[in-house]
């Protein structure tokens, strides 16, 4: 009885495992397959090739897929947003965690309520505003969108700062340290895990965003990977599928590695998010 139950569990686990892996594996294999069509009669390609990867970085007259440019754009936007966003978020969290100033409770509530407002519900307004300011189709607009609201996600960092004992700062104050000094030489070094967590999530967020990127960026040379890949499918209607698969693999690799690295923070971050928003 017990054994058959276990065996059944293993069968289920293997089935779920296959389902979880299949799309990724299939894409990986497709990216090495000769030819460019979506259809293939075997799961494992008959003839292997690296051509599609080479093709991604080569200019061809018959189509406009400037993959290298997209990659560079995405990297640029994601990195700048990460720096700005992390800075803003840390400053906010630190201010709310360590200082008891007038209006603090009210502002905390305001941050909570504003944080609930899903950013992209404002796309209509942002679109109109950027359109009027002639910022549409610039990557700065995208960076602004990604980092300006970062303050609203500060609750995880605030929770972390709350756990750093105050006695450390009190000692530093007695030694004559300024506020800035305390922040840079005591709080920041102690908060390395949370700083890593925030920067990686901001980076990944900008890397994978599609909604705002498609709204703001219009010319193919300015696109990020998300918009570019979407467009390959949309415009070429799956006729360049193997190329697309190769593109996907290259996009997914850095994020997947980052993710595996941050996995240990993930549970904390998620549960904190669940209880605090």
């Amino acid at each position, binding site marked *: 009885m017990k054994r058959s139950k276990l065996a059944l569990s293993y069968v289920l686990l293997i089935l779920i*495992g296959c389902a979880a892996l299949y799309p990724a594996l299939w894409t990986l294999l497709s990216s090495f397959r000769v030819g460019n069509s979506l259809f293939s009669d075997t799961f494992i390609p008959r003839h292997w090739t690296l051509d599609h990867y080479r093709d991604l970085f080569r200019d061809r007259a018959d189509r406009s897929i400037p993959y290298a440019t997209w990659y560079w754009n995405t990297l640029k936007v994601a990195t700048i947003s990460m720096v700005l966003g992390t800075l803003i978020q840390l400053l906010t969290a630190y201010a709310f965690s360590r200082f008891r100033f007038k209006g603090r409770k009210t502002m905390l509530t305001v941050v909570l309520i504003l944080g609930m407002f899903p950013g992209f519900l404002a796309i209509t307004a942002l679109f109109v505003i950027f359109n009027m300011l002639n910022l549409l189709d610039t990557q700065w607009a995208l960076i602004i969108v990604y980092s300006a609201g970062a303050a609203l996600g500060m609750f995880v960092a605030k929770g972390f700062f709350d756990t750093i004992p105050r006695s450390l700062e009190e000692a530093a104050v007695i030694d004559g340290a300024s506020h800035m000094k305390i922040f840079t030489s005591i709080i920041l070094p102690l908060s390395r895990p949370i700083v890593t967590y925030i920067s990686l999530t901001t980076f990944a967020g900008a890397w994978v965003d599609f909604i705002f990127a498609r709204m703001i960026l219009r010319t193919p040379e300015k696109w990020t990977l998300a918009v570019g890949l979407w467009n390959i499918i949309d415009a070429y209607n799956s006729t360049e599928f193997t190329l697309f698969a190769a593109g996907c693999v290259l996009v997914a690799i850095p994020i997947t590695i980052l993710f595996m690295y941050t996995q240990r923070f993930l549970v904390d971050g*998620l549960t904190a998010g669940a209880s605090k928003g």
Partner: protein
Amino acid sequence: MLLLTHAAGIYIVAAQLFPYLEGLMTLGDKGRHFEKKGKISVMVEGDHSIFMMIHGVLAALVVLVFLLIYILNIRDAYRVGLRIQQGKEIHGLKNDVFPWLLLALPFLGVLFFTVMPIIFTSLIAFTNYASPNHIPPKNLVDWVGFATFHKLFNLNVWSNTFFGVLTWTIIWAILATVTCYFGGILVALLVNQKGIKFKGFWRMLFIIPYAIPQFVSLLIMKNMLNEKFGPINAYFRAFGLEGLPWLNDPFWAKFSVVVVNMWIGIPVSMVLVMGILTNISKDLYEAADVDGASAWMKFRNITMPYILFATAPLLITQFTGNINNFNVIFLLTGGNPATMDYNNAGRTDLLVTWLYKLTLDFNQYNIAAAVSILIFLFIATMAILVYTRTKSFKEEDMIQ
């Protein structure tokens, strides 16, 4: 000196900003038009309503910030005066100013790119800013009060779409949340069973879908479900069955988005539930063993209540998240299959994807803004319900 700055400030507000505020009220009175100059008519640039609106909102924000600082100043001066009269010590500036210094940049960011768009959205919803007849600089935009909402609820062209999309949005949110939530619990329990080996390996394996960027996996899924060439239908054919129109038939498209969403959503719930399972005290199970409880009884009376209790807020955040689950719908089906019954929307469109299309593709800004406001009201109600019940906010000072 101080008096001078005050005077200057008041002057600026009164003289410079007032026209903008007035512009916000009127939104301009002349569109681009022709004027007769002698015998030829010349095109004259008229008022640009949307520019006037942005300027007006900015002016209003500046005035508000200024007023706030002004009031705070006076209050502070009054307090300091009181303290001097009572012969108490006066606090220095530094201690109070530093947190505000830290908050200055975040504050500006939030003010201009979160608060202003929200205000702006609410304003647009009450205008007639939409193509083809009210797009500046060619035409003016006017305040129309609740006419946009009236249109959305009562005018057949719009109300059919609105209520159709709304119904599907709610059905979708319930289905997506329930399947992912219980799917996640099941998988977590399966892995956590006594006697299963390589728990870490299984966990890693099942987390893979979550590690791949969503837009990548969704675009891949879109290809896999391709009716003619996709591998899924190829397998069906290999077994002599006919393939299914996964993304092209209203019913099957809905089915596909829910299933694909499970693939993406279950890992998240699984990770969370696993975290919770390790938190359940072993004493409870030992006590149950002493009382001779069966495995099923332990599950029903300890594990399940514990998980449900710990994840209840999560359930609601996931529900609201699914209402706004833009990616899954937009990248997988794009809201299609299209239908003649709806205005600018397809059978699987959610309210968010619909408003995205209305804004970007059809320039129906006022309707889109009205829809965002309605979604927001709904979500805010849900969220407030959750937050007032979370203890972490109330007890935040407990740790120190």
